[in-house]
């Protein structure tokens, strides 16, 4: 009996403690009813900037549990069209991006192949468009000199330097997530990123971006609970003109990221079929 109790005591916490237990988020504004007031003004850092720090989930990716940001919020009625996970250009007429013929051919081929070569399907890093839209959350940690984004999906990691350094020269070693520097324009953190690899998948359809591409992201936190990201893709090799799309996220309270190690038990690779 004693042994069984011991076993139960030992096993019970193991069954439940698969992640950090919920813990109250700090500095959450409360309404008169004591509940979180997600419409309160965004917090600010000691240097006066809006503080983007927090755990954020895509506004369409609500996991349906109480206390984690509430119901899925409606998308902004104005502003750039909203990107989707499958198609960053979904909000444009016909879902069409201003592709050069060669880039259109790349996208067509990727779609015909059932997106089997999407890097994410092989545990390789996703394009930043996919990471902004991914249903798994991301955590922003803002400091005066650098803002770090940890994407739970595929353990993506970005550093956005705000210490005044310039972007690296054009012949820098291409990176999956590129090289990012940021500056403040009013309450928007404007992030410029260059130095991408040539084979970026902006979405899971496979909308391309090349090494010539520059991504400009404007991060705004209009209220405590909302984060809006406007993304402009300026890639003269793939697109006839720059285009801008929006991503909308909401705060997740009292919770944190969960470890995600993609190559832990990857079994799909052997089953992927193209055309």
């Amino acid at each position, binding site marked *: 009996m004693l042994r069984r109790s011991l076993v139960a005591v030992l096993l019970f916490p193991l069954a439940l403690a698969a992640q950090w237990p919920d813990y109250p988020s700090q500095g959450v504004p409360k309404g008169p009813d004591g509940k979180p007031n997600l419409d309160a003004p965004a917090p600010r850092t000691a240097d006066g900037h809006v503080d983007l720090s927090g755990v954020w989930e895509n506004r369409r990716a609500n*996991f349906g549990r109480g206390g984690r940001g509430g119901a899925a919020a409606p998308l902004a009625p104005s502003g750039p069209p909203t990107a989707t996970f499958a198609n960053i250009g979904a909000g444009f007429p016909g879902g069409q991006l201003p592709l050069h013929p060669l880039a259109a051919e790349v996208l067509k081929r990727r779609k015909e192949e059932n997106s089997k070569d999407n890097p994410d399907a092989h545990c390789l890093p996703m394009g930043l468009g996919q990471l902004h839209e991914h249903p798994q959350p991301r955590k922003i940690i803002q400091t005066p000199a650098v803002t770090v984004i940890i994407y739970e999906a595929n353990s993506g990691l970005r550093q956005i330097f705000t210490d005044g350094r310039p972007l690296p020269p054009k012949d820098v070693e291409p990176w999956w997530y590129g090289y990012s520097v940021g500056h403040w324009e009013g309450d928007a953190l404007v992030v410029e990123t260059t130095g991408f690899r040539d084979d970026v998948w902006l979405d899971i359809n496979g909308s391309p971006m090349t090494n010539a591409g520059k991504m400009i992201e404007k991060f705004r936190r209009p209220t405590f609970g909302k984060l809006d990201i406007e993304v402009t893709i300026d890639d003269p090799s793939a697109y006839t003109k720059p285009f801008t799309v929006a991503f909308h996220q909401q705060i997740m309270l009292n919770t944190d990221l969960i470890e995600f190690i993609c190559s832990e038990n990857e079994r799909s690779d052997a089953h992927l079929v193209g055309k």
Partner: protein
Amino acid sequence: MREAMRTLLVNSLLALALAAVPLAAHHSFGAEYDANKPVTLTGVVTSIEWTNPHSHFYLDVKDDKGNVANWKFEGYPPSVLSRTGWKRDATMKVGDTVTVFGWRARDGTNWAHSREVTFKDGKKLFFGPPAGTGDGGPIPAVDAK
């Protein structure tokens, strides 16, 4: 088995009706699974892998002649299962009899993408995302990977 075949037929018709909805690849869903081959199977859970990038469980499924085949079902990673109310080693255990709805692998093996698991007490939970979604659509996305 006849019941399973009937379910298969109904689901196939349903899939045809739904085929008008654009089926966007999701973690290369279309490269791995066939959204036009839905499958509903009842069996006994033989093992569970609570792993990334996908969790899996295995089911011993018996046909009306008594032949047993072991099927493998893929689903959400542990992070999504945790957030949607699943508890490892508690919600579904080896030895449980469950009914699974999902879609078959395109390579024709006893491998499928699981969507809904129905437990003996009638409780239903999603173990994986809907077929081919990722493009938003009318249902709020809860799918990851």
